[in-house]
């Protein structure tokens, strides 16, 4: 056998060894009280809420796995239904309208909204816990220049000129009742065009900046709207419903103790707290988990 064939064999041998080494790594985790996997939605506040509730559980002795930036409900819902995650922190009205497929059952009454939500969650072996008083609704913003030009203060004002304007928001906005369809049915607002961007993120800001949209979906608890020169239009006909922060959990892991921990956070958290936490993360680039840890410490959580 000449050297070429020998080195050919060597090459094949190397390849086979690489194939044999292909096995993945295993992970292990044992917690004293059990493991809970919590997901965060793919926007800044999603991470804040995930760490806030997650760290409270960790403080109580649970082992907590975090899944940050896990897309929108379209990713999170199937993941919690098949037990890949145990818990996410949702928003009462938006979650209800997601699970009832946009039936329009959500109202401004948070307790009624959560009760309805629980009816839909029951079949999925999920439940929504006691809602927080903290609210973060969808809001619609324009730049100050646009607001001045058309003298816009409310969404009713927007309805008069909306046909000349381009709206931007995340892809699901086109079908969610508290977004484009709701604007049409409640205010009669139709836009010249809809640009698919993100949920109050970089793309939306960039689109505002270069003028490719005039109206954008933002979140009411967003900390930097003012400093960005954006004006939120008043929801004068109450399109937005009770989007109170509410933990959604798999019934199988919702023990009394877990519920107690989560409900305590919901009870303590306020809308200004959340805006403040969002500001620390979005504007000062603090790590979300560090900001929420400071909040928990300040509130003497668990002491």
């Amino acid at each position, binding site marked *: 056998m000449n050297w070429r064939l020998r080195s*050919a064999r060597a090459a094949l041998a190397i390849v086979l060894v*690489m194939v044999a080494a292909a096995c993945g790594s295993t992970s292990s985790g044992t917690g004293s009280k059990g493991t809970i996997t919590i997901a965060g939605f793919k926007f800044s506040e999603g991470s804040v809420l995930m760490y806030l509730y997650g760290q409270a559980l960790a403080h109580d002795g649970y082992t907590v796995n975090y899944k940050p*930036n896990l897309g929108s409900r*379209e990713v999170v819902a199937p993941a919690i239904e098949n037990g890949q995650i145990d818990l996410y922190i949702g928003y009462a009205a938006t979650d209800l309208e997601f699970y009832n497929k946009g039936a329009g059952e959500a109202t401004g009454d948070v307790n009624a909204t959560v009760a309805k939500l629980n009816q839909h969650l029951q079949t999925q072996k999920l439940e929504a816990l006691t809602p927080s008083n903290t609210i973060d609704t969808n809001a619609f913003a324009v730049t100050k220049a646009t607001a001045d030009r058309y003298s816009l203060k409310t969404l009713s004002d927007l309805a008069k000129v909306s046909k000349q304007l381009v709206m931007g928001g995340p892809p699901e906005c086109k079908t969610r009742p508290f977004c484009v369809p709701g604007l049409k049915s409640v205010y009669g607002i139709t836009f010249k065009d809809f640009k698919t961007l993100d949920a109050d993120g970089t793309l939306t800001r960039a689109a505002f900046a270069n003028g490719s949209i005039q109206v954008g979906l933002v979140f009411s608890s967003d900390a930097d709207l003012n400093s*960005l020169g954006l004006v939120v239009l008043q929801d004068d006909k109450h399109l937005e419903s009770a989007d109170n922060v509410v933990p959604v959990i798999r019934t199988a892991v919702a023990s009394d103790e877990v519920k107690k921990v989560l409900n305590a956070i919901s009870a303590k958290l306020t809308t200004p707290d959340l805006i403040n936490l969002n500001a620390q993360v979005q504007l000062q680039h603090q790590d979300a988990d560090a900001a929420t840890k400071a909040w928990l410490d300040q509130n003497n959580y668990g002491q």
Partner: protein
Amino acid sequence: MPSGLFLATQEPWILWSWLSTHGQLFVDATVQHIELTAIAVVVAFAISLPLGVAAHRWKVLRNPVFTVFGIFYTIPSIALFVLLIPFTGLTVLTAEIGLVGYAVLVIVRNVVVGLESVPADVIDAANGMGYRPYRRLLQVELPLALPAIFAGVRIATVTTIGLVTITAVIGLGGLGELILEGLVSGFRTPLVVASVLSVALALVADLTLAGTQRVAVPWSREA
């Protein structure tokens, strides 16, 4: 444009003070990125080699193999990962099904092309020397096809490194997660640094494979 709009754009491309305290994030993400890529390419290779050999030997298999993986290749990756969640969850398996599927087409094509480019007179000579088909495949055809196969593995590796960033949608993206984090929070530093690292990773992987090829398959230099 109103003044004060888009503070974020006045921020430096890289905030070094932040980076200096968050280096570990990038180390962990890079390691995960390499793991996801290595598993995908190695498994794809293990599938592609026998599949390519079979498609070369039995011509009837060729079109079905190319068509099936060709169609797989056209499925948008974000959709694929999300569609798999109900079945395989937010696991490495979900990520790898997609990554392996995309890589197989690239490698299997090169295996077939490589085997087909073996000159007919070389095969005749091997037959004349009394090689049986199995031994001829192992000792004559595959070694001569190795340069093409290596080229396929290199393309698959570089493609996979880019594709891994998309698996961030299921929370497993290596450097993609930091890119997503930067996009979501409007923070340039993780976005820029993770993108640069991802490109660097692709370059290093390609050069490493090229080097390996020179050492392990010296005859490819003549090809």
